[in-house]
């Protein structure tokens, strides 16, 4: 891996700006895969009830950065990656706002697509972030989902070191 940027921040980010920085001066990039997570109005566990008005995101300063660093390093062991950018916002985020960005560049698309999905799956189950869902008249800490744990587990089966 040539470069790794990890940022945990309150302020919003620009997908265009992040991609422009990743591309600048690098003629070897053939593929740039990105993922952006947004605050969704309907809560899976609670869809019959009220719409979500915002989320509150909390992290463990120091440990969360370490978790993300380890996830990126594990992705780098599996695929020929050039650059990785991971941005995660914290604090109160309204519906439709951006929560998380993962960008992975590589020479070819397979590595970029796979590493981007891998990083998101591990971020959801291994990085120290907690999310509270806020509706007009209640606040509720979001429960960890079994489907997320399964998504992380499936990578153990497909472990192929490059």
């Amino acid at each position, binding site marked *: 891996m040539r470069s790794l940027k990890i940022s945990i921040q309150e302020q919003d980010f620009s997908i265009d700006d992040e991609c422009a920085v990743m591309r600048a001066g690098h003629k070897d990039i053939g593929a740039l895969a990105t993922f952006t*997570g947004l605050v969704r109005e309907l809560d899976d566990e609670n869809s019959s009830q009220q719409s979500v008005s915002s989320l509150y*995101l*909390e*992290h*463990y300063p*120091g*440990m969360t950065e*370490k978790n993300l660093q380890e996830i990126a390093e594990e992705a780098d062991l599996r695929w020929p990656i050039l650059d990785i950018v991971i941005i*995660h916002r914290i604090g109160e985020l309204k519906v439709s706002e951006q*929560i*998380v960005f993962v960008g992975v560049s590589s020479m070819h698309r397979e590595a970029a697509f796979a590493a981007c999905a891998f990083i*998101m799956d591990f*971020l*959801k*189950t*291994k*990085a*120290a*972030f*907690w*999310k*509270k869902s806020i509706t007009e008249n209640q606040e509720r*800490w*979001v*429960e*960890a*989902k079994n489907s997320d744990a399964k998504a992380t587990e499936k990578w153990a089966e497909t472990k192929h070191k490059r």
Partner: protein
Amino acid sequence: MATVHYFASIREKLGLSTEQLELPSQVDTVNALVALLIEQHGSSWEEVLKKSSVLVAVNQSVVSFTSPVTNGDEVAFFPPVTGG
């Protein structure tokens, strides 16, 4: 002194985000630390910290409740993570 952090729903239920305490020599595992915290703060802490889903990190690495702790360590209790 050990530093203990509480996050998310655990922080809210306990009404505390961080504290520092001197560990007596017999408090040498996470389980013993949990017993000490319950003794100091009262039995209302028991149902929060003894819930099976609670995770613990010592010096910013997730460990088991039988792992060692000592003065100078940074310990954190938190629920399963839900970022992204």
